[in-house]
């Protein structure tokens, strides 16, 4: 159990809260690049409603309610000098300074005393990231999956009805894989006569967790394997504070858990398909975005695929899990370690220092390579097959292109000729 008071401290993300202050040291994706056209879009991040708009090559982010009469800036006019509220035409520059108030007397200086709240935005890898913290802003980390070339990408998304911390705790809970995605998966699939999971069923013999520069590396030894296998020697990381790196066999994935507010999480599955082999992938015109369904037609959670099972487990703990009424065992030490790490980083931030993983050194930011097993669960291709066919990737609009890419890559390894894969989706 955890005390109610500490649970509150670790889960509340709004402005002025300890965790909200810690989380405001990082950049978060709020939309796919393809979602922002000529009209503004509205999002909520860390309990604040914001509106994003595109002005040439720049992206503006402004508080969602116009400082004048609180109408939504989602329905505003994007202009050369900034964004103009659709209600009475007040114009704001990219820095939030009010530039025009058309209905006020021409000699009025009222506009000089009005400044809307604005934030920074940057695009990377087909996503739009927003930073809501203090200046100077840290660099947007250029993690490998966001900057690699010669690969395919897609982005699955779902808005989830629970606090982001219980989603992150799942990433340091290796035992759930063999149960939730193995035994439970096969129970559900057995009822409907669907294909059973095999690789995901493998029993965990040993797990370990190490803090590193960007979070926690998770390691496991599965039954029949040793510490010489990649699952132990390499592992894969929880990227502090809100991301998981996972995959295997040429499939790489970030699961990005964006804290929308105390009880909602915007979940991005950022997939990169880059098998070993000799091939050329034509650049994608844009990274396709697709919604991952989480409910069936009766309103129950969809639990016949990996990510639906995860969502069920996270959401059924409640909007904010009551950790004062839980019973942790030794197999939960990863979860305990993550909570302690958050508490340590809260203290660090309260002392005025940057928390773990904040990047300010441009010399390391061309491409930050994170560790990840290739031969995952002792069989990269077997894990990839189950992850692609029994995971959220099954909803991807480029699912067939992805399978074709892996076939071509395998052929190239067998035949030696470079192949050209055209997937300009």
């Amino acid at each position, binding site marked *: *159990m*955890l*005390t109610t*008071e*500490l649970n509150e*401290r670790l889960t509340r993300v709004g402005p002025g809260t300890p965790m909200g202050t810690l989380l405001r040291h990082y950049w978060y994706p709020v939309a796919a690049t393809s979602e922002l056209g000529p009209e503004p879009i509205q999002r909520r991040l860390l309990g604040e409603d914001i509106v994003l708009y595109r002005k040439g090559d720049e992206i503006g982010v402004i508080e969602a309610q116009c400082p004048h009469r609180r109408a939504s800036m989602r329905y505003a006019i994007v202009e050369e000098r900034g964004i103009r509220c659709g209600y009475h035409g007040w114009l704001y520059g990219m820095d939030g300074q009010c530039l025009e108030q058309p209905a006020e007397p021409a000699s009025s200086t009222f506009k000089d005393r009005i400044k809307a709240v604005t934030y920074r935005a940057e695009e990377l890898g087909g996503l739009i990231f927003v930073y809501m913290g203090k200046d100077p802003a840290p660099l947007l980390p250029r993690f490998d999956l966001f900057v690699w070339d010669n690969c395919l990408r897609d982005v699955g998304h779902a808005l989830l*009805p*629970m606090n982001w911390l219980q989603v992150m705790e799942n990433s340091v809970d290796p035992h759930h894989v063999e149960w939730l995605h193995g035994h439970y998966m096969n129970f559900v699939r057995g009822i409907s006569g669907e294909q059973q999971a095999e690789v995901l069923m493998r029993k965990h013999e040993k797990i370990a967790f190490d803090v590193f520069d960007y979070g926690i590396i998770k390691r496991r030894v599965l039954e029949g394997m040793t510490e010489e296998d990649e699952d132990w020697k390499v592992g894969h990381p929880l990227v502090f504070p809100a991301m998981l790196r996972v995959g295997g066999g040429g499939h790489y994935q970030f699961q990005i858990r964006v804290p929308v507010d105390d009880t909602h999480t915007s979940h991005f599955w950022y997939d990169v398909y880059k098998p070993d082999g000799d091939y050329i992938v034509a650049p994608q015109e844009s990274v396709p975005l697709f919604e991952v369904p989480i*409910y069936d037609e009766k*309103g*129950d*959670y969809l639990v016949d695929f990996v990510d639906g099972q995860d969502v069920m487990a996270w*959401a*059924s*703990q*409640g*909007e904010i899990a*009551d950790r004062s*009424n839980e*019973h*942790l*065992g*030794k197999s*939960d*030490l990863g979860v*305990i370690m993550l*909570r*302690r790490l958050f*508490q*340590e980083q809260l*203290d660090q931030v309260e002392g005025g220092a940057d928390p773990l993983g904040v990047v300010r050194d441009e010399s390391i930011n061309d491409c930050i390579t994170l560790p990840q097993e290739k031969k995952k669960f002792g069989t990269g291709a077997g894990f990839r097959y189950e992850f692609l066919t029994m995971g959220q990737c099954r909803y991807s609009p480029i699912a067939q292109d992805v399978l074709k890419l892996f076939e071509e890559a395998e052929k190239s390894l067998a035949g030696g000729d470079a192949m050209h894969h055209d997937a300009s989706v």
Partner: protein
Amino acid sequence: MPESAGAAPRGETAIDDDAQGLVGFCPHCGAELDVQSFVQEYWTADERVFHVWCERCRYVFDVRPTARVTTHEPAHE
């Protein structure tokens, strides 16, 4: 939309006390372990453990409340 879990009644395995209060002070520096520190209960078989991080001295340790101290008997010559 499915219902979320609410506050469930406590089961027989639960111990109705305040974990944070049970380990109130750091054995390393003596500081009070308030909400700025970290006290987390977990179980290893029938052994109750409190994993603690002290915010003042940064010490990390486990506390195991012990009702009985057992040891093995030395071999008789």
